[in-house]
């Protein structure tokens, strides 16, 4: 079968931007968290676009770098034809939902809403497709991120934006269900 695409530079470009922004913050002692998502406020709107590029600490950015690269690359490698749809849904709709519905009036920053969206999509999509490769991929990602995943969507740690995780996961699940019958995905 002809593969539509096995590669997209998008996850790498996003990670490059994440690190460039982080470098600027450290180098010039500026804090760009004001570009995060502040729910239901006009000043929080740019966050829908920028929040995933902004991270508050080295630990924070390191925690998101590998999953964005791995899940993003796997998405385009295995599901190239629907890669952009899934990626942009998980990026933009997740952030829009955080802006609209998050109960906490604080700034949400970081890329893990996208990470949760991509993982939820990949786990569920593999199960729904009932094909060998997606199923193996689904189980692999579940084993890799499953534990953190369930912990992360619950409001346990007050410093963590569980809202981003929850809405990311929701967008991933809805995307997997809505795209499950697509004939050609790679």
């Amino acid at each position, binding site marked *: 079968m002809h593969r539509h695409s096995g590669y997209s530079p998008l996850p790498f470009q996003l990670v490059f931007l994440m690190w460039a922004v982080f470098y600027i913050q450290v180098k010039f002692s500026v*804090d760009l968290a004001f570009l995060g998502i502040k729910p239901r406020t006009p000043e929080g709107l740019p966050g829908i676009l920028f929040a995933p590029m902004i991270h508050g600490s080295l630990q924070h950015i390191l925690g998101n770098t590998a999953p964005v690269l791995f899940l993003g690359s796997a998405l385009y490698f295995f599901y190239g034809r629907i890669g952009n749809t899934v990626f942009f849904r998980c990026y933009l709709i997740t952030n829009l939902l955080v802006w609209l519905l998050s109960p906490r009036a604080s700034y949400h920053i970081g890329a893990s809403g996208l990470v949760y969206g991509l993982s939820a999509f990949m786990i569920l999509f593999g199960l729904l497709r009932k094909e060998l490769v997606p199923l193996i991929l689904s189980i692999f990602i579940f084993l890799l991120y499953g534990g953190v995943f369930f912990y992360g969507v619950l409001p346990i740690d007050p410093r963590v*934006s569980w809202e981003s995780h929850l809405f990311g996961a929701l967008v991933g699940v809805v995307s997997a269900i809505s795209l499950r019958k697509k004939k050609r995905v790679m």
Partner: protein
Amino acid sequence: MIKELVDLSKDELELVVKGPLLVGLLIAGADGNIDQREMRQGLELAQNQWAKASREYAAFYRAIAEDLEEKFNILLQQYPRDTRKRQKVVVSELEKLNPVLKKIDPRFARPYHKCLLSVSRKIAESSGGFLAKNKVGPEEAAWVNLPMISEPGLHA
């Protein structure tokens, strides 16, 4: 008045101004013995650091550091003498900063949180004394990272 603080109520603003002193009281008093020298040293070191890190807010921090000993003595009178009771009251006051910091623009809130941490660390380190220079004692270690105050902004 700093524009980021305009929307705060009088009580909230007072708490923000009092924050570094409360942190000083918490850390300097953690071992039951409040050393004014330790407190002053810590706040002066932190003040220099703030001035470098945030020129925009230097005046705010300078205002906090003005007449420090006097302010600190007044503050001290208002809290229980017993260390455990005092720590409990100070911790609960510092916890009240969380909702306030969430309301403020992170351009102010995050450097302010870092400022509180730097006060805490400088005071904890300055209490190490001559032989144990820069060592943090066990009583201070429990509080030095200010676990009762979350970093403003939610990490996703």
